[in-house]
């Protein structure tokens, strides 16, 4: 069975460590915040200028001056700090954020990522995505293995315009956990009940398969 969105978030949450500063992209990556292991302290960075993002406010906590990068109302967590956009991207570009999780349309064997525009569709912009992929050392891409037409999103070479070049080393899809190195995908783990053959068949780029590929445990 392919992983549900929550199961994907649970798996990515295992990459967290106590004391991590983490930036979660808009969409599925935000679900990771719901699965921070108990007893572990992580602080969420929001690129509009907030380190230590709390949950959505209750009705009586609403503050129009306090939003996240998705423009949603939020609160501050204990120990939060607030700063300008320049400061926020200084911590991103300076490599100070420990883990960045973001979605993508395509990833390829050279670690290129395409996540911001589809030619022919209305282009809204890259927001902070280009800064995040260029600045972070530790990035996990979270996406479905194939698009809604069944086309693989793990490619020999990205077809869509790039968000960043050579910056992705880890991808979690609904089928597999994949590492990227030496110009190849490397299958690390698979979704429970999903065969190695199925994953290889649904991966357009070259995939190295070790003798043993464990199932992701839940």
């Amino acid at each position, binding site marked *: 069975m392919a992983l549900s969105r929550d199961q994907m978030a649970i798996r990515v949450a295992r990459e967290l460590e106590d004391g991590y500063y983490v930036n979660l992209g808009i969409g599925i990556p935000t679900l990771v915040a719901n699965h921070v292991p108990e007893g572990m302290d992580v602080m969420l960075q929001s690129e509009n200028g907030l380190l230590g993002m709390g949950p959505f406010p209750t009705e009586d906590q609403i503050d129009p001056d306090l939003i996240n990068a998705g423009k949603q109302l939020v609160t501050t967590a204990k120990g939060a700090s607030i700063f*300008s956009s320049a400061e926020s991207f200084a911590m991103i570009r300076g490599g100070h954020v420990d883990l960045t999780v973001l979605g993508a349309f395509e990833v390829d064997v050279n670690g*290129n990522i395409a996540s911001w525009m589809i030619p022919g569709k209305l*282009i809204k912009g890259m927001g902070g995505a280009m800064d995040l992929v260029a600045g972070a050392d530790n990035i996990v891409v979270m996406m479905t293995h194939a698009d809604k037409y069944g086309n693989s999103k793990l490619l020999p070479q990205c077809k869509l315009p790039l968000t960043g070049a050579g910056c992705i080393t880890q991808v979690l899809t609904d089928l597999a956990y994949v590492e990227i190195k030496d110009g190849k995908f490397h299958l690390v783990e698979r979704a429970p009940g999903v065969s190695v053959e199925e994953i290889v068949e649904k991966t357009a780029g070259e995939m190295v398969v070790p003798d043993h590929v464990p199932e992701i445990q839940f």
Partner: protein
Amino acid sequence: MAGFDKVVNTYEEAMAGLEDGMTVIAGGFGICGIPENLINQIKKMGTKDLTIISNNCGIDGFGLGVLLEDRQIKKMVSSYVGENKLFEEQLLSGQLEVELTPQGTLAEKMRAAGAGIPAFYTATGYGTDIGEGKDVREFNGRKYILEESTQGDFSIVKAWKADRYGNAIYRNTAMNFNPMAATAGKICVMEVEEIVEPGELDPMYIHTPGIYVDRLIQGTFEKRIEKRTVREG
């Protein structure tokens, strides 16, 4: 106006001198921390062919979106746009030009302009369409592209409180692009919720020193919410 006193009493005075074809740098993220009354004043003045440098372009009927209604904007320099129908229409019909810029690069372009730095190297955008035609240099084994800073004829910003000298404090994430925008305009116009006397704000907690601010005005703000995400209490 005398000495360091930056206070002006009307929005007409605040935006005096803005002319057709000028470049305006605006603070704000989405519609949070935007100089809403200064934008409305530009709408009222009917100034045309403006280049606006701002992370976003507001929404239909609010924020920078109102400047689209009478086609006052010629070009937007932003990281993320298209939260408004009118924007989409004018973009697709070719009436509006858009230069998409990565968010961190946009913030740095403003910061650098205010600090007298004409250009800077960044890894952001290298190997993408954004890096096309830009100077590339390698430092410590990594490739970087040269990005130029962007100055404005005017910058319009929103802070929470300021003293009459323009020493200002922002509130929560309404800070966003405002501190950099404040430094990047030849004329910086700041609007605030409250003006106090010099000496009332603790000098240790000033975000924007008054040296950057040319005109200061107190206004009232609607503070519209773009995405009302609330949880059960």
